[in-house]
């Protein structure tokens, strides 16, 4: 288990949900608001000791996918949004930037959540917050299955290296065999795990984990971030700065 104590999981989950709604509801032609909202992943990852650098690097993994989703916008929407100096910037580019930012920020918030709470605490919190049992049990079992496939893959890889005498190239046919075997092994393992669960009375839904007490710090985390996120989302800072403060820029 990494990061914050068990008790913090539900409050982190709620903050993440609010954050995702805030990010995804920002109008597509208003990327500036998204930049303000970046405060959450940056500050929260520093407070919890994970470090924004790591979160940011890991979030780049999803970049190809969101670029793929957004890349057609600049070609489809050529209407001018504003001028940068005297170069016209089309609405298509603005929405492209918006999509990239949204994707990165949402993914960063999720990375932050998972690295702070761990998958299984996360599912427990979902249950406690009221997600349906069926859904969380499915998610947890899927997660367990994926880790199991990974374990089997590691075992097979070790076995291959141990007897491969440095051989590193295998034909497509061999790879096909490895993958087939991996699937068989994983489903056998999954059957034994399921058996072991049934032997201890498992009947379809996982019992809740240790009861989680809401600590004062969890409440503070929850309320403080929700207030901050709402402010960042709904207050138009450029307007605020230039009109409400007595500054002459």
């Amino acid at each position, binding site marked *: 288990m990494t990061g914050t104590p068990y008790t913090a999981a539900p409050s982190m989950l709620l903050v993440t949900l609010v954050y995702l709604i805030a990010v995804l509801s920002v109008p597509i032609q208003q990327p500036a608001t998204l930049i303000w909202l970046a405060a959450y992943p940056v500050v929260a990852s520093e407070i919890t000791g994970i470090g924004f650098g790591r979160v940011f690097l890991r979030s780049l993994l999803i970049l190809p996918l969101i670029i793929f989703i957004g890349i057609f916008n600049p070609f489809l929407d050529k209407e001018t949004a504003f001028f940068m100096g005297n170069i016209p910037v089309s609405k298509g580019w603005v929405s492209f930037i918006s999509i990239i930012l949204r994707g990165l920020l949402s993914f960063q918030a999720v990375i932050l959540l998972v690295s702070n709470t761990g998958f299984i605490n996360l599912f427990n919190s979902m249950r406690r917050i009221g997600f349906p049992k069926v859904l969380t049990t499915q998610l947890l079992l899927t997660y367990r299955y994926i880790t199991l496939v990974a374990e089997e893959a590691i075992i097979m890889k070790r076995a291959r290296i141990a007897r491969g005498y440095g051989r590193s190239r295998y034909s497509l046919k061999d790879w096909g065999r490895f993958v087939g075997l991996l699937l068989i092994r994983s489903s056998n393992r999954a059957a034994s795990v399921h058996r072991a*669960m049934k*032997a*201890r*009375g498992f009947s379809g839904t996982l*019992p809740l984990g240790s009861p989680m007490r809401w600590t004062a710090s969890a409440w503070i985390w929850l309320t403080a971030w929700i207030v901050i996120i709402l402010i960042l989302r709904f207050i138009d800072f450029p307007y605020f700065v230039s009109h409400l403060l007595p500054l002459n820029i």
Partner: protein
Amino acid sequence: MSHHYIKFSNVSYTYPDATKALDDVSLMISHGERVALLGLNGSGKSTLLLQMNGLLLPSSGEVNVGDVPVTEKTASIVRRTVGMVFQNPDDMLFMPTVYDDVAFGPRNMQLPENEVARRVENSLSAVGLENQAGKASFQLSGGQRRCAAVASVLSMEPDILVLDEPSANLDPLARRNLLRILSSFTHTIVLATHDFELAKKLCPRSILLEEGKVIADGETEKVIEIFENKIL
């Protein structure tokens, strides 16, 4: 609780791929007995144990635990009586912490959380893992994982304890520890093992399997002698 006997009547079991793993097995284990199941690899020990709590059901014949015939319908009741420790402890540990793994059974039994806590603490201290409750099971050593797996079954307070090769991978100290835990268990114990010493120390009675058949059943010393003569 003398009704917690285990009775096999002409039990045969064939795996879906047509491997005949049990062949007309009949036996009776009374309450409070400690029985070792011996036999070569593939002789059918694990298959036989899995019949004891309905994880596999006989292809023909009948298994009774107490007065209850083991069927699809009664399996969940039988599993409250028969606690099973599997050959591979990793199959049994999947919750975020050791504590939650040991609590898994009692919570499935819908016990109140303070009773769950009491049982988890007792079982963890019985296996000497009371200080590891907050760890994830993958952070334990192989031997500690087996102890955690044993604790996860002890917490269900079963009347019959079934163990599949419990002493595999244990260092001498952990093995002695396991022996101590099992000796203090007052109810029925059935264990499959290749560890003759463990069988001799713990179980007055042994059953020898060969290709799915019971070929000897009696005093452990004698059964081991028969087994050794067979191998040589």
